[in-house]
């Protein structure tokens, strides 16, 4: 039995150490998805943590035929979209990174400044997309899911995913021209 399948079974039996392994294995993927959707803010990590808490609650019903990474991505996207709706109701539509907006960004001291600037530019550009376009870019380009899997996660036809990707990339390409 593959290692991850073992951890899932052990976590279902109440083994929290096994669940910890699952979190460590997938946290980067989940955080990348949520940060992409919400921007580099402290509340993005709150939402990312909630993804794993939802997974823990759903473990008894989790079927091993489904890929865990896909399942987590689906939860991450849904919770992020909920958070964006909540922000919209509160009148905070765009969230910028670092010093640019009302949200205090998370600073990464370990990355060289030029790479950090590029990263900020990419994040800022992502936040200019409507959530439904942002989701396809994150799943397809950031997480690297094929179009079909992206479509399954978002419950959209593959043609719609491809079309949204094309439009989103054209917009991103214009915004990020100086970096390319």
């Amino acid at each position, binding site marked *: 039995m593959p290692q991850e399948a073992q951890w899932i079974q052990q976590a279902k039996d109440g083994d929290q150490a096994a669940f910890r392994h699952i979190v460590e294995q997938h946290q980067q993927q989940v955080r990348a998805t949520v940060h992409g959707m919400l921007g580099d803010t402290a509340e993005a990590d709150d939402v990312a*943590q909630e993804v794993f808490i939802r997974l823990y609650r759903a473990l008894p019903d989790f079927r091993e035929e489904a890929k865990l990474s896909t399942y987590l991505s689906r939860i991450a996207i849904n919770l992020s979209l909920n958070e964006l709706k909540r922000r919209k109701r509160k009148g905070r539509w765009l969230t910028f990174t670092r010093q640019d907006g009302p949200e205090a960004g*998370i600073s990464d001291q370990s990355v060289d400044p030029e790479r950090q600037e590029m990263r900020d530019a990419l994040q800022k550009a992502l936040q200019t997309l409507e959530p439904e376009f942002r989701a396809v870019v994150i799943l397809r380009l950031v997480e690297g899911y094929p179009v079909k899997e992206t479509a399954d996660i978002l419950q959209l036809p593959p043609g719609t995913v491809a*079309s949204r990707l094309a439009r989103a990339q054209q917009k991103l390409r214009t915004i990020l021209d100086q970096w390319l």
Partner: protein
Amino acid sequence: MAINPRHIDLLYRAQDNPLSPVEERELALALEQSPGLRAERDKLLRLRDAFGQIEPPPEPDFTAQVMAGLQARVVPLRWLRRVAAACLLLLAAAFLTLYFSEGSLSTDTLIGVQELQPEDATALAGEWSIN
């Protein structure tokens, strides 16, 4: 020389959606003939590559925070469900005991009081007023 917008469209579509053979040939020819379109393709590929490498800022305490959140929110809830289930079992056992000892689960049996008649109510009211 301006790039034909149709070729830009084909270029972007081709990344994630197979083009028809006719469209593929048209794009290939356009790329061959247009340095501007080739430059656009190179920028698009750099854009996709850049997003493929984007990572969130590191958070070394993330796993610990998830596990702490579980302890605070999920584990107590499981204990609460077990206590609730135990209470229901006790209640069911109490009802069964009463049923097998009294032979019924009527209101009289449950409350343990004989059915009152109207004259009983007036007699009781009289006693309370004296006291």
